[in-house]
């Protein structure tokens, strides 16, 4: 049956900001869906609060709303747009939950909007634990013994029914398992159940028999309305049951099932999809298998496109989201052709002839207090995927793709710490799932522990362990060559080492030589990788999609064209500080260059992204972003140049070495990029250009640091050089703090100096994105931060246009920016950070490359900065491109950061120079205050329009507080405060209810939080240590309770401005990006 003709306008909901559990994969799926639906002639209305997505580029939908993802706002958009249908299955759990909410509230019925893909009933059946269980029992599926509970008392009863610990606790309707966990004893049980009940929007937890240690599998199933079902991919988790699948190392296809076992799982998965009733689209079904007897139990099913389906798409080449969108509008699988083979239909099951490994990337270094044990609650912030002909290749490639300074499965000199571990600790750490466990298996094998030993500790299937054991043993085989010369003479051994996935870096380590030497020796020996094709069919049919991976074998399938071609080096796995924003820039570069008739070669290792969609670029290489891997591609393709300034720190770190190896870096030269990071050079440049800089110095020892700090005057900002996202950056107020920092936080040395800057207290921080073609420069935007300098710019809210900068300061900013762009010979993008005090402008940092704010600025001003930058790098001039002057829109745009605090109970949520946010949202409105409120709502910090505000503010923040509080009173909020703040307000004639501090007894702030009598918490961190501990507890409680919390006075001020503007209207208006941009044009 062809597509439906009774619907014309379809609304699509995105997944909002990048958070743990929902990342770029939903931009990828959303982009595919938008393209597919528009290709079919449907009008698309898209809503997403995340400006860093490709899907919110105005050309991807007919109407794009960058608005908070709340039912109120969506209702307004529905009322305004009157779509015929809502497709909720492509925007993750967020979209699914909103779909249900809109259905339940009657909005969809009222406006006659049909839910397509999956309706509310289907979603509920899959997500509601009881309904799901009932449905599964009905079709004869085996389940772990389990019961649900709505209260802690019920939970205790249920516990007795199930039996001994451990028990698994899963809250209903939460994404990525938020609030869930494994209880090993009664204390855990009480704590996790309480948390789970709170997190579940339906106040429900499922308490379950433990199947910890069982094998875990996932199947990606697709179904059309004619009930044709296909399995796109099977995935086997290397980490057994007990670790969230998002935190597990996973491998595709399944490795340890016989066909008979696999087909049983396939039958069951299809039966599940039918019973749940997903009419069309993709679903993910998860299974656990008892390794001893094959008992198979169902874990869960997601009636939507998921992170796993993005992985499955990248692993097989089958575009699940695109096909799901087409199925939702009426096509059947056999009516859609397989893009890759062109001749065969989409109604088939991909078969692959390689092994895919996905490994999560964690950010525990950012959250020192967080528990890094992996459990059923997802904690990773990103992932890398690698394709190899064999599991060994695939695993080693995936490990080096993580960009955590490992160049494979050990043998890279990075495991010294593990060597030190005593056997007892090693045993414990193998039992406890954690991010380093994969490397610990190697240490165990090095100690002669057997596969059986390691299996007993980890429950990792012996099949995987044997490969790891073999890799460990093989290190000695490589080393047996004696020297690189020896290896060069033994070509079969050399080749075998490469076939086993060893990087040149590892071989260099094992033979005590350098990577460059190994590369040269390898070239001598004629050992170079070939490039295989991802073709969905294991070479059975000729494939047309240029999607490649490297391996070692007979002949390469990637035949280079003779066109002019540019390589774009992506950003690798998401991490805090480097995420979707950079992928956005890479994708834009690709789009722009393709339009300019230049062939684009994309290299990336992150399966979630749009950049790794096979039709984003002319050619896609799914490869680790290391010098070795990138050089292979560059040389094989004979590229004319490579772009390094769009993928964040990853390509920049490679830039110099690439250049030394003959790669033509287009745009700003690596020398300039490096120079800007070099403090000495930077200082000289500032002086030469007469640009004001905070006083600063570089210390290579603790003594020197003290000396410099005293010269500059406290407080000072300290940080190690060459870091990403402000790692280990701190504001230091005195000698003692500085000494502690120098000994605990960093190891200063000649190679790794520590930077010390005058800390400009009370200064406004400003970010500038600028585009330069080498001759002319144009400001993209000047962004004023809401929070003061000292908070990492990635964590700070910022607004366009600035609200509090004088014309003189802005003029200075422009002057400074232009002269630095000229001096650094910037060709492309440049980001500058300034601190502004009155009319004085200080330059803090210059980065001649794409910044995190490029997508936000582009959306705010309606100009695709990254696209223009890519064109500029190929030689075009800004004047040719028609971008000649700064655009200052009439509307207001606010970017707000989004944090993963709810994932790490007990950690402090206070913003510091260390970046902690995972994502961002954007609020746009004609009124600056409303734009700010929208940004807060979008970030999940829904500020109440009435109720009790609790204030506890440190002394330095008190001056001026009274005006804000007075506004709050006028808005009829109840004011509660702790002693100091209470006293201060009283002195300024403001009455408030005094609340005890935690140390003062009960009822204190935490009690009020627990009894739900606080609606908004304003708490700026105090300096004292004990007080700080109390506050951390309180803030963490507030986060877990979902109470909006504001931690800076500037944030409070901006919010109150918004609330005042909102006034009695109490509803926010919505407007599409296309309309905003049109207004700029006219």
């Amino acid at each position, binding site marked *: 049956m062809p597509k439906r003709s009774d619907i014309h306008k379809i609304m699509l909901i995105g997944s909002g900001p990048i958070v743990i559990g929902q990342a770029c994969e939903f931009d990828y799926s959303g982009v595919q869906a938008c393209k597919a639906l528009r290709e079919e002639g449907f009008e698309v209305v898209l809503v997403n609060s995340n400006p860093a997505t490709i899907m919110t580029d105005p050309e991807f939908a007919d109407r794009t709303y960058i608005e908070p993802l709340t039912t109120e706002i969506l209702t307004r958009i529905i009322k305004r747009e009157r779509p015929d249908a809502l497709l909720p299955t492509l925007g993750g759990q967020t979209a699914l939950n909103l779909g249900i909410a809109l259905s339940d509230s009657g909005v969809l019925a009222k406006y006659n909007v049909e839910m397509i893909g999956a309706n509310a009933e289907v979603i509920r059946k899959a997500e509601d634990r009881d309904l799901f269980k009932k449905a599964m029992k009905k079709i004869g599926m085996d389940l772990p013994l389990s019961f649900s509970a709505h209260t802690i008392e019920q939970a205790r009863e249920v516990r007795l029914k199930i039996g001994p610990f451990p028990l698994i606790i899963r809250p209903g309707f939460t994404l990525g398992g938020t609030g869930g966990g494994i209880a090993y004893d009664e204390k855990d049980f009480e704590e996790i159940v309480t948390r789970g009940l709170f997190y579940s929007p339906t106040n429900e937890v499922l308490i379950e028999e433990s199947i910890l240690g069982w094998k875990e599998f996932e199947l990606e199933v697709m179904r059309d309305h004619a009930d044709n079902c296909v399995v796109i991919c099977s995935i086997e988790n290397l980490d057994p049951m007990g670790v969230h699948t998002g935190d597990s190392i996973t491998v595709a296809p399944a490795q340890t099932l016989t066909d008979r076992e696999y087909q*049983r799982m396939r039958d069951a998965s299809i039966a599940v999809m039918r019973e749940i009733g997903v009419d069309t689209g993709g679903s993910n079904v998860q299974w656990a298998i008892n390794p001893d007897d094959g008992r198979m139990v169902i874990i869960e099913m997601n009636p939507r496109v998921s992170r796993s389906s993005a992985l499955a798409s990248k692993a097989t080449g089958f575009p699940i989201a695109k096909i799901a969108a087409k199925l939702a509008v009426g096509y059947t699988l*056999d009516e859609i052709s397989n893009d890759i083979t062109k001749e065969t239909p989409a109604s088939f*099951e991909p*078969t692959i*002839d390689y092994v895919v490994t996905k490994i999560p990337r964690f950010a525990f270094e950012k959250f020192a207090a967080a528990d890094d044990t992996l459990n059923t609650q997802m904690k990773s912030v990103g992932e890398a995927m690698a394709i190899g002909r064999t*599991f060994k290749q695939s695993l080693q490639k995936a490990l080096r793709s993580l960009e955590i300074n490992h160049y494979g499965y050990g043998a890279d000199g990075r495991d010294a710490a593990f060597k030190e571990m005593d056997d007892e600790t090693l045993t414990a750490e193998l039992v406890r799932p954690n991010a380093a466990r994969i490397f610990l298996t190697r240490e165990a094998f090095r100690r002669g522990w057997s596969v059986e030993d390691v299996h007993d500790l980890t429950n990792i299937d012996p099949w995987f362990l044997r490969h790891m054991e*073999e890799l460990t*043993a093989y290190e000695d085989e490589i080393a047996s060559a004696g020297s690189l010369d020896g290896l060069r003479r033994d070509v079969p051994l050399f080749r*075998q080492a490469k076939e086993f996935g060893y990087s040149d870096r590892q071989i260099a380590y094992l033979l005590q030589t350098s990577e460059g030497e190994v590369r040269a020796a390898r070239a001598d020996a004629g050992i170079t990788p070939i490039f295989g094709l991802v073709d969905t069919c294991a070479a059975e*049919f000729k494939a047309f999609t240029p999607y490649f991976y490297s391996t070692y074998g007979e002949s390469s399938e990637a035949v280079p064209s003779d066109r002019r071609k540019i390589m774009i080096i992506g950003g690798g796995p998401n991490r805090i500080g480097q995420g979707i924003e950079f992928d956005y820039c890479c994708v834009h570069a690709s789009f722009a260059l393709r339009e300019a008739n230049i062939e684009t070669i994309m290299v990336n290792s992150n399966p979630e992204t749009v950049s790794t969609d096979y039709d984003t670029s002319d050619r896609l290489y799914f490869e680790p972003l290391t010098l070795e891997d990138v050089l292979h591609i560059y040389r094989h393709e004979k590229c004319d140049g490579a772009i390094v300034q769009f993928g964040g720190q990853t390509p920049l770190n490679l830039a110099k070495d690439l250049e030394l190896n003959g790669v033509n870096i287009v745009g700003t030269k690596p020398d300039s990029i490096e120079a800007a990071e070099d403090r000495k050079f930077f200082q000289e440049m500032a002086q030469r250009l007469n640009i004001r800089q905070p006083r600063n110095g570089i210390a290579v020892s603790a003594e020197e640091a003290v000396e410099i700090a005293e010269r500059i005057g406290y407080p000072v900002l300290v940080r190690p050089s060459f870091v990403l996202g402000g790692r280990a950056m701190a504001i230091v107020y005195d000698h003692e703090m500085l000494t502690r920092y120098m000994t605990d936080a960093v190891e200063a040395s000649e190679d790794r100096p520590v930077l010390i800057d005058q800390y400009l207290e009370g200064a406004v921080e400003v970010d500038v994105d600028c585009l330069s073609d080498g001759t002319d420069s144009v400001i993209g935007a000047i962004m004023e931060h809401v929070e003061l300098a000292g908070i990492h710019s990635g964590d700070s809210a910022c607004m366009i246009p600035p609200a509090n900068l004088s014309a003189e300061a802005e003029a200075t900013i422009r002057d400074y920016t232009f002269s630095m762009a000229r001096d650094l010979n910037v060709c492309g993008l440049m980001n500058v950070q300034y601190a502004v005090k009155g009319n004085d402008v200080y330059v803090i940092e210059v980065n001649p490359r794409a910044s995190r704010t490029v997508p936000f600025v582009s959306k705010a001003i309606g100009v695709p900065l990254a696209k223009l930058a890519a064109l500029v790098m190929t030689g075009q001039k800004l004047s040719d491109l028609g971008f000649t002057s700064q655009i200052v829109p009439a509307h207001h745009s606010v970017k707000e950061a989004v944090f993963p605090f709810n994932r790490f109970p007990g950690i402090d949520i206070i913003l510091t120079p260390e970046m902690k946010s995972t994502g961002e949202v954007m609020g746009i409105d004609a009124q600056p205050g409303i734009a700010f409120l929208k940004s807060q709502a979008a970030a999940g910090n829904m500020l109440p329009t009435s109720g009790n505000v609790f204030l506890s503010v440190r002394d330095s923040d008190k001056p001026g507080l009274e005006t804000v509080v007075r506004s709050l009173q006028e808005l009829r909020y109840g004011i509660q405060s702790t002693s100091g703040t209470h006293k201060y307000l009283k002195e300024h004639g403001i009455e408030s209810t005094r609340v005890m501090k935690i140390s003062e007894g009960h009822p204190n702030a935490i009690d009020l939080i627990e009894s739900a009598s606080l609606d908004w918490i304003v708490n700026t961190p105090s300096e004292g240590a004990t007080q700080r501990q109390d506050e951390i507890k309180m803030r963490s409680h507030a986060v877990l309770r979902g109470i909006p919390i504001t931690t800076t006075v500037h944030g409070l001020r901006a919010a109150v401005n918004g609330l005042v503007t909102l006034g009695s209207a109490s509803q926010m208006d919505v407007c599409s990006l296309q309309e905003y941009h049109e207004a700029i044009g006219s």
Partner: protein
Amino acid sequence: MSSDWNWRQQRDKSAYLALEDGTVLRGYSFGASTDRVGEVIFNTGMAGYQEILTDPSYAGQLVTMTYPEIGNTGINQEDRESRRLFLNGFITHSQNRASNWRSDQSLSDCLVAADVPAIAGIDTRALTTRLRDKGSLKGYLCASGALAEAEGIAAAREWEGLDGQDYASRVTCDDAYTWDEDGSLTRSWGITEDLPEADLSIVAIDFGIKWNILRSMRRSGINVHVVPATTSADDILKHNPDGIFLSNGPADPDAVTYAIDTVSHLIGKKPIMGICLGHQILGLACGGKRFRLKFGHHGCNHPVKDLATDRVEITSQNHNFAIDADSLDLSKVEITHINLNDQTVEGIRHRNEPMFGVQYHPESSPGPHDPFYLFDRFRAMIENA
């Protein structure tokens, strides 16, 4: 740590596969130390190598697995598809030791015990691409290391190949037998625990029958008496079966003239179902012609459309020959199923007599169970006859 790594052997690459086009691919042996000629084909199934090894239809062939990691689940007693291994040789990229709770033998040990040569360390993707572009090729698998490459190429070229060859008579059972009288072979892991009463009985002509066909029949309440390929129509009818089944089998249907003859005497007498070679024989018995596919269909992911219902089923396939749609007398025979990849005939039915055949494998094993309904269809056909 285990010390039985065979890295040096892997590097030495003393085994090779020589193709008739002169290509030689070197690797290492992991099966029997013997040499064998055969038709080199590739199978795209990712699991199910044990079923492939024991499927008699692969007789005469050197089977390449496109999935590189093979041997992962070892060999078990329940997943066999016949009494022994029938293929001439086995080609993989990598071979592994087993990790599976049902495994009781390693792949390598199984191959050695069956005297089947096997080679690993081959770029199977490059080989597959070659076969896709050139079509199936004759090959010589030298696992003994005893023959020079040039001689291996010559041996491959000299071999008569599978065209025009009757292999059914080589793999069929020696004597007739009744399948699984106590139900123990059918009632195996993952197939079924409860067997229905068998209230029908049929005769199956064994051209190389797979056990899962027999298990599927038994699961559908049908007892099966299996007879050798050359059994005459009269002898079959003597059993007065409720229906007749024509099994899958190796090589060229044109060469099985005796069976075509037998079947043409059976059509109309009893309800008949054919699978794979059995289906081809039905087509030929109805006057159709067969043709050789370039590189055959061997895998578990072939989409087939049931033209009556428009439903798509994902099927398991293993054949080099197919019935030419244009050769069929459509007034007599109806095409019921087509392959959506290349539009070839996947199923036929007689318009007037109770008879149907499918080119693919509804018994799967390996492969998806989507077309299992065909056994019920056969049963219904018998009941309505």
